């Protein structure tokens, strides 16, 4: 009986020949990621709840401060101090203000075939490099820190066969939002969303990050694109080797819970309406909506490709006086590249506000918080009620192009 990519990764990590969906396996984790959203809680549990706390392998742990960086009040500063001191004490690598955790993990750490736990739901992004990344709570993470292992229920896999190429003006963001709209916010609960087919291989690594990142919004445990030569190249460019024996692809006779076929050339620009990620409609059918703020950034859409799209549209134009256009590059590496390409100059000249590389508006508590009855269009990950500020505010999700155009006109689809 054949295995899917997810099953093969779990089998490798469990040290067994084969697994099948529904099995419970104990796996040795390749990497653990924790950010400032919850690390202080994990540290408290480590210090106060365990009898003889120890760390299984400090070199497998990565701490990243990205949610409230730089700190906006003494409470978050105190949480950061706790995280920093723990990293110092235990020799754990710490990134502070260098970018969004998932972007840094993909730039610096993730390798194909690995299984990675992160204390953040969007850890599913790592499938862009053929890894099995999944979000866990801090208790699960603490167990993994202490033992180096965890139990996993082997998930079923839904296969998405992608064909062809996206048309100009249509982005991976539109594709994944379309898929989430089709299968629903719980359409892939506990399951792996696996992407393959010529359409998947046509996508760049950055594009694949967009796809995998948002899989959790359909409830998925992980999102994985079938790894190929582009993955090998990406890893090499970022100073690490993709091991040939960990470039897992699904067997022909693997079992899938469902198989979907998508013709990428048929995808069109879409928006997700407040307050659900799966309330997706074609942009062309969206009424003209007045906005107060536009946000370009996040682990979903804060990469160089997205900034390029915005700069091309904004060149020689101005952001509307009635819109706050907030841009947050996903990492300092992205920021540098954008500076060198002149993108940041274009955005600044147009009137955008450029934040340090962090979660920014998508996190909704540190920067660019929106007010009562305000409307935001965002490239962030979520549009839940109150996600970006006041409970009465509304968040629409769209592509970098949709967001940038709205920043200029002051309207979605206007």
């Amino acid at each position, binding site marked *: 009986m054949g295995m899917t990519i997810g099953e093969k990764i779990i089998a490798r990590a469990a040290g067994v020949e084969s697994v099948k969906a529904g099995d419970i396996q104990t796996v040795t984790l390749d990497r653990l990621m924790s950010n400032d959203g919850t690390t202080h809680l994990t540290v408290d549990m480590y210090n106060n709840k365990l009898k003889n706390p120890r760390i299984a392998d400090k070199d497998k742990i990565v701490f990243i401060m990205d949610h409230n960086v*730089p700190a906006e*009040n003494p409470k978050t*500063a105190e949480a*950061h101090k706790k995280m920093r001191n723990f990293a110092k004490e235990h020799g754990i690598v710490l990134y*502070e203000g*260098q970018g969004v955790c998932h972007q840094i993990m993909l730039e610096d750490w993730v390798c194909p075939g690995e299984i990675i736990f992160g204390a953040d739901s969007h850890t599913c992004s790592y499938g862009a490099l053929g890894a099995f990344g999944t979000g866990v709570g801090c208790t699960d993470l603490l167990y993994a820190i202490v033992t180096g292992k965890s139990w996993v229920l082997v998930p079923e896999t839904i296969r998405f066969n992608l064909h062809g190429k996206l048309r100009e003006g249509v982005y991976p963001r539109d594709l994944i939002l379309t898929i989430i709209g089709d299968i629903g916010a719980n359409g892939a609960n506990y399951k792996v969303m696996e992407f393959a087919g010529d359409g998947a291989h046509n996508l760049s690594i950055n594009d694949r990050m967009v796809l995998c990142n948002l899989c959790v919004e359909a409830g998925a445990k992980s999102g994985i694109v079938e790894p190929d030569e582009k993955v090998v190249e990406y890893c090499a460019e970022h100073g690490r080797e993709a091991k040939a024996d960990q470039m897992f692809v699904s067997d022909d006779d693997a079992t899938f819970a469902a198989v979907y076929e998508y013709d990428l050339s048929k995808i069109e620009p879409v928006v997700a309406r407040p307050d659900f990620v799966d309330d997706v409609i074609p942009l062309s059918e969206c009424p003209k909506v007045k906005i107060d703020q536009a946000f370009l950034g996040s682990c979903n859409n804060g990469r160089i490709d997205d900034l390029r799209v915005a700069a091309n549209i904004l060149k020689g134009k101005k952001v509307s006086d009635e819109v706050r256009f907030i841009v947050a590059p996903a990492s300092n590496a992205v920021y540098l590249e954008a500076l060198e390409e002149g993108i940041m*100059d274009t955005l*600044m000249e147009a009137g955008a506000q450029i934040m340090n590389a962090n979660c920014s508006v998508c996190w909704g508590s540190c920067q660019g*918080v929106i007010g009562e009855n305000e409307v935001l269009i965002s490239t962030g990950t979520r549009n839940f009620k109150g996600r970006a500020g006041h409970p009465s505010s509304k968040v629409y999700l769209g592509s970098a192009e949709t967001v940038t155009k709205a920043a200029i006109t002051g309207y979605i689809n206007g």
Partner: protein
Amino acid sequence: MGNTLIEKIIMKNTGAANVTPGEIVTVNVDRVMIHDIFIPFVADKFKEMGFTKIWDPEKVVLIYDHLVPTSAVEDIRHFKIGDQFVKDYGLTNVHRSDGVCHQLMPEQGYAKPGNIVFGTDSHTTTYGGVSCFSSGVGYTEMASILGTGEMWIRVPETIKVIVNGDLPANVTSKDVILRLIGDLRADGATYKCIEFHGDTFDKMSISSRLTMSNMSIEAGAKAAIFAADAKTAEYSKVALEDIDWIYGDDDASYCQVLEYNAADLVPVTACPSQVDKIKDVAEVAGTKVDQVFIGSCTNGRLEDLAVAAKILEGKKVAPFVKLIVTPASREVYLAASKAGYLSTLIKAGAILTQPGCGLCCGRACGILSDNEVVMATNNRNFLGRMGTSKVQIYLGSPATAAATAVAGVITVPEM
């Protein structure tokens, strides 16, 4: 008997043949600045006073900087009230995310040499760097100016500060003004004007002069003004012959004179938690820091980022230390980007934030917690200014800050 510089500005403004310290006069205000923190209060008071129109909307500048980017839901209310005020009273000079007010006022040409300018912020003294008499007022007073275009003032005594010679390479105008505040003490210039004389100031850039005027409020000064020269004319885009009257007469009367030799000055720092607790950087060198901040209306200008980039070029910020850099304005950001400073700073590991007040106003962008230590280039180290009351804030020059970021401990810069 000659006149001091501020007396001359007041005389020109009021048409009086002479004014003397202690006299109460009413001046015609040339320009006012209101920022986002206080616009709701100004708007309320203005209406409460019964005014229906602004004396001259073109003379009013509204700047959002303290709350950009917002960090709390309530912050938005300030923008909404500000935007409504703009619509109701026909304001045209509005900056919603272009940088710190005190950078924008001289940079965008709102504060011109010889003007009398009031702003709802204590650091309004900054524009003395471009030979303005400028000072901070509260929002009630601002509301009355908006209605009348006038303001009563007491003609201040003037303290003359003379510095001659070349500053050592690692000493900046920030060190000079900190030294001066240390000598005058935090209330030493209260109600008074400071006037700067000597060839050290002649050689100083406008940016460096703005830094000095900016911080003079920390000695309590009502204003701190430089004589106008060719640099002033060029920066403010006015003809030198129109502003060459702006200087203090040789035979003017001063209440105090302080004189320094530039060559004797060294890098200094204001130690926690008083702006006048000045020590040589060398005395506190080796003190461990958790964070370094380069920015603010005091030291977030191009030359400040240039010196930071020079020191950080090819180096890394020390482990477990955060370096936060906040350019003072959109124009500063763009110039620093084109000069490559921003890339250098990011390569060194800096956290680069949107132009604005940032950490200095204590609302976002790097708040600290108990027992943490920060070396910062801004203007105040008051208790609780950047977080809890147990945060230790040292104030220093951009050079001192950058050198400290690299070493992780307070360090005397080498240039």
